[in-house]
C-alpha cells in the first residue's frame, strides 16, 4: 500500500448512502463491512482509495463505499485497477469482484496481474455461482451441481484460484470467510499493507442460488499453520486442504511493479531533434 497520513475514521465513514442490490443474507454485506473496517483500521482517507470492479453481484461494491470507484465491464476489473494504480501510485487501489468475473471471463487478467505484481489488493467474493444471471455454474462450482443451463451438473472440475495465484506469482495469498467479519478485516488489513499484488479469496455465500452454502459457517476453520514465504509449500498445502482453511497462506517478498507515472519528471531533451535524418 501507499504511504498516507493515517486518519481517524469509523467504518461507517467509508460507506455510501446507496442501498445494495444484494439479497438479504448475502455474504457480500459482510465483505463490505470488513473492507470498511479494514480501511478504518489502517486509517486511509476515503478519497485516497479507489475501489475498482467488473460486473456481477459482488462487483456492485464500489457504489456502496464512500471512495472513488469504477464499476467497469465484465471481467476487466484487474486491467482497470492496473491502469489506476500505475497512473496514480499515491492511491490505495482495491479491486473487487466475483468468481465468474475474475476466474472465467477475466481469468487471463488474473494470471497477468499476479505476474505483474502491481501494488493492489484483489478481493474475490467466491460463491461458486453466477448470481446476477440467476444461477449458472461458475469456474469454482462442483461438477455435479445441478442447474437449468447444465442439468445434472457441468461435469468439469472446478478451478483452484489460490493455486493459480501462487503459480502466477501473486505476492500475498489468503482465504477468508465473509461470515467472520473480524477475521476477514484482519486478513484485508494485512493484504492491503503487503506490497505488491495481494489476492484474497473470500468465501461469500449466495443464500438464494446456493442455500447449501449456509453450512459453510460450520465447515470453515482456521488454517492449522502460519503463513509461509515458500510458494511451493503454500501450493502443496492449498492443493491438499479441504477448501475451508481460513487465513493468510503465503506472503512473498517479490518487488512490486515499479513503472509508474511520475508527475515531477520533465523532458530533458528536444524530441523534435530525433526526427532529423
Amino acid at each position, binding site marked *: 500500500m501507499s504511504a498516507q497520513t493515517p486518519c481517524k475514521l469509523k467504518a461507517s465513514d467509508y460507506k455510501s448512502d446507496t442501498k445494495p442490490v444484494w439479497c438479504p443474507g448475502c455474504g457480500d454485506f459482510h465483505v463490505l463491512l470488513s473492507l470498511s473496517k479494514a480501511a478504518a483500521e489502517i486509517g486511509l482517507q476515503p478519497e485516497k482509495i479507489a475501489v475498482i470492479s467488473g460486473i456481477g453481484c459482488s462487483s456492485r461494491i464500489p457504489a456502496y463505499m464512500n471512495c472513488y470507484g469504477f*464499476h467497469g465491464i465484465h471481467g476487466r476489473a484487474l486491467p482497470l485497477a492496473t*491502469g489506476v494504480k500505475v497512473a496514480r501510485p499515491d492511491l490505495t487501489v482495491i479491486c473487487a469482484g466475483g468468481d465468474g468475473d475474475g476466474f472465467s471471463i477475466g481469468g487471463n487478467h488474473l494470471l497477468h496481474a499476479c505476474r505483474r505484481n502491481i501494488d493492489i489488493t484483489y478481493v474475490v467474493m467466491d460463491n461458486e455461482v453466477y448470481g446476477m444471471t440467476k444461477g449458472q455454474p461458475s469456474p469454482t462450482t462442483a461438477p455435479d451441481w445441478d442447474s437449468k443451463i447444465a442439468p445434472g451438473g457441468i461435469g468439469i472440475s472446478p478451478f483452484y484460484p489460490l493455486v493459480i495465484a501462487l503459480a502466477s506469482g501473486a505476492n500475498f495469498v489468503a482465504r477468508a470467510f465473509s461470515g467472520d467479519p473480524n477475521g476477514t478485516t484482519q486478513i484485508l488489513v494485512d493484504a492491503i499493507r503487503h506490497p505488491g499484488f495481494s489476492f484474497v479469496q473470500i468465501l461469500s455465500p449466495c443464500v438464494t442460488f446456493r442455500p447449501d452454502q449456509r453450512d459453510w459457517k460450520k465447515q470453515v476453520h482456521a488454517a492449522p499453520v502460519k503463513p509461509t514465504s515458500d510458494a511451493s509449500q503454500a501450493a502443496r498445502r492449498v492443493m491438499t486442504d479441504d477448501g475451508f482453511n481460513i487465513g493468510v497462506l503465503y506472503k512473498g517478498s517479490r518487488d512490486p511493479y515499479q513503472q509508474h507515472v*511520475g508527475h515531477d519528471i520533465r523532458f530533458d531533451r528536444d524530441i523534435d531533434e530525433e526526427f*532529423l*535524418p
Partner: protein
Amino acid sequence: MTNPTGNHDTISIALIGKGGGGVLTAGEMLLRASAYFGRYGMMIPAVGPQIRGGESAALLRLGESPVNCLDDTFDVLLAIDWQHAERFRADIPLDADSLVIFDPAAGSVPDFIVGTGARMHELEMKALGDTVTGGRPNMVALGFAAAIAGIPESAVLKATEKKIGRKGRDAVDASSECVRLGYAQVASGGAAAAIEPAAAANTNSDRWLTSGNHAAGLGALRGGIRFAAAYPITPATEVLEWLAPRLNDAGGTLVQAEDELASINMAIGASFGGIPSLTATSGPGLSLMIEGLGLAVSAEVPLVVINVMRCGPSTGIPTKPEQSDFNAAVYGLHGDAPHIVVAANSVTDCVYTTQWAVHLAEAMQVPVIVLSDQFMGQASAIVDPIPSINFLSKRKLAENIGASFERYALTADGISPMPLPGTPGGQYTADGLEHSTAAKPSGLADDHLAQLDKRARKIDAFDYGQHWADIDGDGEFAVLTWGSTTSAVREAIGRLPVDLANKIRLVSLRLLSPARPLQMADALNDVERVMVIEQNHTGQLYRFLRAWYELPADVQTMYQPGPSLFRPGQLASTLHDWCLQ
C-alpha cells in the same frame, strides 16, 4: 529533376530481394541520403509475414517537392535476386520506359518482368560485393541506385556512416567501398545510355525523416499523453515502440498488456486517475476494444485509440493498407454511444490529427478513435519540420467541491466537471451502468434520456473549428475523400489540365464522426456534383455521407479495396473523364 521516364518530377525506385538480404536497409539509406541531399521522398517497406527468409521490397519515390504517395509505375527496379519476386507483381508496376537492373548470377529474369517490355541492364552485385572483405550486394545496389537518382556519393556515405556506424569501422568501410563500386558502375557508362543523371538539389538540413506511426506517437506526446497500454499488432506496433522510451523520459509510462481487452481498460483506468491515456491497435484489436470504448463513453473518460488500418476482415492482410475500418470505428459500439472518429490524411498529418484527438478527448471527456493506415503508418517520409500546435488540451476538473456536487450534472455544453481521485468530497463511482446526475446507478427512463442527451450534446455542440476537413480549391465539382487516399487524389488533380483542375474542390474529412452538416453545406456551396473516393470494398464513407449530409443529385463514387493503392494516374484519368461528362 529528370528521371529515366521523363514524366513528372520524381523518380521511383524499387529494390527487391530475399528477406534478410538487406533490401530494406539499402532502401532506408537511399532515402536518408536523399534527405541529406535536400530531396523529399518516401519509402514503403513491403514484406512477407516471415521474419527471415521471406521476400522484401523497398519502394521509393524521391522528388524535389513533398512526396505523399507512390507513382503509377516504377522508373527503376533493382533486383538483388528474384526469390518470390512474383509476389510484388502488383506492388511494382513497370512499363516499357522502366529500367530493370538485375544480377546475372541470380538466374534468368522472370517472364512477368520481361513481359512488361522494360529495358534490362545487368549489374554483377554479388560478384562486386565479393571483391570487398565484408562486402554485400545490397550496398553495391545502393550505390548504383543512388547514382541513377543523381544523389552525390558524399550523401550516401554519410547515410552509411549513420546506419552502419554502430557496427564498427570495418563494417562502415566495407559498405562504403561497395557503395563506391556501385557508383563506379554508373560512372563507367554501364548504364549511361539508359539514364540521364539528375540535376543537383539544394540541401535543406531542417527536414525530418519519419513514419506515420512515429508521427502519431509524437502527436500523442505533444498532446499530453503520458500513459499508454497496448498489445503488439501489425501495423501499429511502431507507435508503441516509439512511445515507450519517450513516455518514460516525459514522466509517463507504457504498459504492455496481456491483450487488447486489458489494454483499453488499463488506459481507461489511468485516464480515470487523471493521466491522459492512449492505446494503439489495428482492426482485430479494435474489435476487441469495442466494449471498452462503450464503457469510456458511459463513464465519460477521455481516451485516445489509434487504429492503424490494414486489410480486413479478420486477420486479412496484416501488412497491407485498406480504409475499411470506417464502419467499425463509427458504428461498432452497442447502444447509442456518441464518440469521435478522426482520420489523419498524410504522414505529416498523423502528428496533427493525433494531437488534436488528445485535445478533443480531454476537452469532451470522450473516447476518440484516430484512423491511420498501414501505408502512411509504416512509410518513411522526408517531410518539412512539423510544428507543434497549441491546442488547449485541458480537462474540465472539479476541484473545490461543495455538498451539492454531481459528477454527471446536466451542463449547457454537456461537459461536467470531473473530480480526480484524491480530491476530497468528489468521491463517485464511474460506471458503465446508466446513472443519475449524482453517478448513482439508475434504470429510470428520465435518467437514461438525460444522460443520452448530455453525452450526445457535448460532442455535437463542440466547436471543431476549421480542423474538421482540409479543403483545397473552390471549383464546382467536389471530390470527397479521407485518410491517406487524399494524397493520391491531390496529386491526380495536380496532373489535370489547369482548366479542369480549377473545376475541382477537394474536401478531405478529418472529423469523420460526428457529422458536421452545416460545415459541409458551406464547403459544398455551389457544388454541382460530387465524387467520393476511398479505399474499401463497400463505400463506407459514401454511405455515411448519404445518411448524414445533403449532397447534390449527381454523386459518383470510386472505391476499391486494398491492398492495391490508388495511383495518381488512375485517379487523374477518372477525374478527367468525370470533369468532361
